[in-house]
């Protein structure tokens, strides 16, 4: 089996290390961000990969009668579901059970792993096939399965490549967007023994051929879920490749893992959410396969699994729910649009975040999932340009939530230096004479600073030049212009 994974990605090693010792998360973030920013080729490659996104998305948006109002409708659907989870979650679970599926509740990651391991043991699984599921990354499912000796193969092409590379996903929708085709060819040669090629088509076919028999042989298929429909007890899975369809069709047992926030009330809601997810995420009219499952194969159906299990995961989602100000971050449909448009993501890259969910939405929710004290630095990983909020199809107030996290962090664990800095600034700014003197001093010492390169400024000066000092202060310039009128 193709799972002799080696951790050859240094960034991934950092990401993994960050999870183990969150205390170092900020340090590592700053270090990796600096590294990534210096890697001009990498940045150009990522930019190019995302370049086509705007074009296809905008062309698709133009086909909507009114894209903005459609976004309103989508955000209303999610808002009303998330704010009535108390009613809809049990309703969904009851309907799903009535359809013949089995629901399991997991308070945290550990419990989710235990449940799935239990199911896999009971199924006496010899081979497990998996389709893309970020929630399983969140609970580190593969590691747990492998530790127990179960082979598990990621079937999504991007996830498969990342599994062979021993790296987590770089982007939660485009897992291997940072990898060049030559590297993929080498990777396949090394692990699958295939001939070198630089054709994306041929590389895709190599993976396709490799995976075929694995679907047939697997006894357990593991998937995620994009939506849980309360009124009908169905789960909805969105994908392009068909690997999730195969994963839920051929193995004898189907296990799905989903966060509790995925509930929507009506089947109708999907008439808005499915197209909007596709358009915002990849610029498609619809993702290739949008599939509703309601339990195992029914009598009279000629194939399909004998058992279907759904694991409903909390893992701190209720903590986000308890914050009315940021509750809307649970509306997220994981389309990835906010990553695609984020200037920070494009510069620091996906691994630098050290989180399961990268980019703006990851920066908002990770402090809730793993602790504000250790992850507040992500609130600063933003230019506050608001591109994420503009792009978000369900209107999550993403960039303001980054500010909310900063404020909350300042309240709970004030930073002495920051406080001192602000006090100093207030002292100077409220005394015009001091402000003017300080300004003059700074203007005149700029050249000297450039020459001296004091250690305090050395980081900054490593990649930037100091600006040229103006001849006179702003106030002097202003006064002279007013006078000249």
């Amino acid at each position, binding site marked *: 089996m193709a799972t002799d994974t080696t951790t050859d990605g240094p960034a991934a090693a950092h990401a993994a290390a960050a999870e183990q010792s969150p205390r170092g998360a900020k340090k590592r973030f700053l270090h990796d961000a600096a590294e990534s920013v210096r890697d001009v080729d990498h940045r150009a490659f990522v930019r190019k990969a995302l370049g086509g*996104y705007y074009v296809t998305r905008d062309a698709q948006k133009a086909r909507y009668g009114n894209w903005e109002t459609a976004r309103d409708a989508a955000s209303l659907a999610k808002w009303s579901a998330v704010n009535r989870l108390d009613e809809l979650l049990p309703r969904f679970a009851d309907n799903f059970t009535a359809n013949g599926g089995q629901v399991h509740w997991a308070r945290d990651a550990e419990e989710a792993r235990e449940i799935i391991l239990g199911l896999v043991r009971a199924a006496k699984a010899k081979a497990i096939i998996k389709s893309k599921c970020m929630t399983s990354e969140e609970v580190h499912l593969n590691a747990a399965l492998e530790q127990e000796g179960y082979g598990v193969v990621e079937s999504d092409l991007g996830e498969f490549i990342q599994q062979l590379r021993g790296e987590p996903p770089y982007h939660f929708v485009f897992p291997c967007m940072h990898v060049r085709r030559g590297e993929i060819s080498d990777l396949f040669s090394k692990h699958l023994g295939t001939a070198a090629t630089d054709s994306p088509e041929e590389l895709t076919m190599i993976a396709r051929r490799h995976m075929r028999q694995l679907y047939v042989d697997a006894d357990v298929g593991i998937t995620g879920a994009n939506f849980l429909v309360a009124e009908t007890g169905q789960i909805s899975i969105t994908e392009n490749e068909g690997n999730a369809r195969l994963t839920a069709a051929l193995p004898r047992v189907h296990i799905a893992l989903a966060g509790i926030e995925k509930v929507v*009330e009506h089947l109708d809601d999907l008439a808005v959410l499915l197209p909007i997810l596709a358009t915002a995420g990849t610029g498609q009219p*619809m993702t290739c396969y949008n599939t509703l499952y309601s339990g195992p194969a029914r009598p009279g159906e000629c194939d399909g699994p004998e058992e279907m299990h759904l694991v409903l995961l909390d893992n701190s989602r209720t903590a986000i729910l308890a914050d009315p100000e940021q509750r809307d971050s649970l509306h997220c449909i994981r389309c990835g649009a906010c990553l695609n448009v984020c200037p920070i993501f494009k510069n620091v890259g996906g691994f630098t975040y050290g989180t399961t969910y990268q980019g703006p939405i990851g920066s908002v929710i990770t402090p809730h999932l793993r602790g504000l004290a250790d992850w507040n630095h992500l609130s600063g990983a933003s230019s506050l340009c608001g591109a994420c909020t503009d792009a978000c199809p369900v209107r999550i107030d993403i960039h303001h939530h980054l500010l909310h996290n900063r404020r909350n962090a300042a309240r709970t664990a004030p930073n002495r230096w920051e406080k001192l800095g602000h006090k100093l600034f207030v002292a100077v700014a409220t005394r015009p004479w001091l402000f003017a003197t300080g300004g003059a001093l700074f203007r005149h010492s700029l050249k000297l600073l450039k020459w001296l390169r004091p250690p305090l400024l050395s980081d900054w000066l490593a990649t930037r030049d100091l600006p040229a000092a103006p001849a006179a202060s702003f106030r002097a310039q202003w006064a002279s212009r007013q006078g000249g009128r």
Partner: protein
Amino acid sequence: MSAPANLSPRSSRPGPSARDTILARVREALRIPAPPPHLKSLAAEEAAVPAAGQGHSGLSILPLEVARPWLPDGGDTPEERRAILVTNLEKLRAIVHQVPDLTAATELVFTLARERDWQRVAYHGHEKVDPLLAGIPCATHRVDAPGVHPASAKSALEACDAGISACEALVAQTGSILVSSATCGGRGLSIVPHVHLVVATPDQIVSTLGDALHEAQQRHAGRMPSMLSFITGPSRTGDIERILVLGAHGPKELIVILVG
């Protein structure tokens, strides 16, 4: 088979069940209401958004009918719907054949099988599918034939060059084809073979996704098939350098034959 009770964490952790704990946390969290979303285009009154903390009920406060004009157009008349569907399917790189009658469709399937040198095609018993296989110049495999062992059925299907199925509906708005496990030959037929050939009639074309979902709910009143799948073009991936490649894991080709 029942859940493995002895391994269930419910028994391994003392105290209330995970379900009760999570639902209690949810109720506690929702005690403080959240403000309504920041609507940009739609006035709050239009959407009948209730003030925070009042009862509300999903899109029923905003019926799908209201949202319809904001979404991509699916056409109002049968002619419009058909034209939009065909355009969308072609954009998605599906292959569309429009034939006048069943005889022409049968001839087309015969030609396809011969041209592409199909050795074996899979199909399911259905009034629209059966006639097409008359005289087909290759072996056939019926997926819903009684008494087939599941394990051998998987391999048999895997060995087929094409799968021929009916569908439940075609959605003009998105160019999607709705198949179900109950009426379209189970879960595997439309995804395992390298070519998926769908046979349909124009009366199956609906305008929007919402229409297709409503119809499915009525058709299967109270008892949904275990799988309902909207197929929108042949399988695809952009995982390698964001370059589009067709036929990632599902069918590389999607052929739609519209009869009539």
